[in-house]
């Protein structure tokens, strides 16, 4: 690891000032991705601004229509939260399947979505549920947030405060994890929302994406069989040592069916 200076701001405003006053500063959330990158010297910030002292960014609040999760809330806190488990169980499943227990004790939702790893789990849930990302200066719709591989719509120095998830009628998440890392080779999140059915895929392409053909088929009939035969062109998918593009194309169909099946089971269970 290269040397850096360490800052622990006591307010969001102070964090913003620290970012603005150091050209090569980076925010540190849970550190589950950034610290390994520093150790491998893949990144060399001059300054780390640790958000760990900002209690305002931690916690889960629930209303009738949505669940708001603070950016520094850990995956373990999300998966163990009663309201999440009751109102959006698929999101609890997603958070509980990230990495391993020790990683989930440190890793955060804000860190995950800002890093925008193409194989991260959270982007699928954020996009499929039509979440809103609240920053220190504006609100960004999930569909506009993820702009490419490790790229987001965030401006330099912009800090995510919270992610607000509308509570869906039903939702399911299924992923085929890499057996070593537990990153998604393919993960599909399906949500039946007030605004229609949304299907978001992570792991398969350079960035999370939706499948409109599956969404309209599921809107007509919310059943696993509805997505059978709907495929994504292989040419748009990742082809790497973990899986070929053809295999990923196949997995998208399988994971989509499993996600719909789990969503149906969950909603029937509640009724």
């Amino acid at each position: 690891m290269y040397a850096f200076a360490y800052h622990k701001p006591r307010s969001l405003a102070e964090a913003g000032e620290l970012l603005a006053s150091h050209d090569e500063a980076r925010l540190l959330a849970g550190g589950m991705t950034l610290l390994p990158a520093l150790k491998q010297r893949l990144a060399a910030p001059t300054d780390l601004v640790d958000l760990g002292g900002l209690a305002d960014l931690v916690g889960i609040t629930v209303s009738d229509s949505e669940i708001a999760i603070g950016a520094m809330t850990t995956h373990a806190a999300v998966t163990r939260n009663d309201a999440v488990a009751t109102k959006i169980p698929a999101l609890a499943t997603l958070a509980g399947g990230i990495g391993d227990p020790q990683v989930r004790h440190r890793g955060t939702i804000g860190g995950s979505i800002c890093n925008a790893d193409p194989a991260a789990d959270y982007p699928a849930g954020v996009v499929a549920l039509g979440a809103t990302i609240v920053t220190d200066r504006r609100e960004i719709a999930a569909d506009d947030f993820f702009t490419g591989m490790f790229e987001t719509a965030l401006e330099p120095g912009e800090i995510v405060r919270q992610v607000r998830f509308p509570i869906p009628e039903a939702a399911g998440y299924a992923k085929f994890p890499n057996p070593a890392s537990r990153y998604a080779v393919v993960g599909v999140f399906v949500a039946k929302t007030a605004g229609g059915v949304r299907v978001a895929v992570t792991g398969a392409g350079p960035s999370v994406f939706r499948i409109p053909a599956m969404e309209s088929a599921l809107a007509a009939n919310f059943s696993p069989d509805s997505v059978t035969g709907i495929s994504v062109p292989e040419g748009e998918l990742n082809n790497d040592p973990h899986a070929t593009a053809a295999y990923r194309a196949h997995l998208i169909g399988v994971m989509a069916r499993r996600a719909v099946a789990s969503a149906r089971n969950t909603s029937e269970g509640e009724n």
Partner: protein
Amino acid sequence: MVDSVKVAFSVNGKAVTAEVEPRTLLVTFLREHLGLTGTHVGCDTSQCGACCVHLDGRSVKSCTILTAQADGAAITTIEGLGTPENLHPMQQAFNENHGLQCGFCTPGMIMSATDFAARNPDPAEHEVREWLEGNICRCTGYHNIVKSVQAGARAMAQG
């Protein structure tokens, strides 16, 4: 450019204050500054879990935390659990169930297992196996580790 960072936390119940370089990892501080070499560095990539310690009661991988991030926390390492004369119930269970061979992964296994057992007094085999996702053992094939964790969890619940 690089300052030092002052930290104050407790390690195994004792207050510790120090001034460290910001890039000092927690595992480095525990091993090289405090001499607590029971916490091991295995993969150094947050995969293997040999470096597990408790931070405010939750198991974490100390190879992937800066010492500065632990400021104000209560840290427990394997040295804080039991002594050779008076083993912690989880250590005793690993001993009785032959839950180790070379022993390198064992401190991390036990720190992970005690965190788990504190909330799961009588875990099923599959629950233990799922929990141990973040702890890698290259000797045992895990069967006896799983037995050890189940026995240790029950022993901890009985106090």
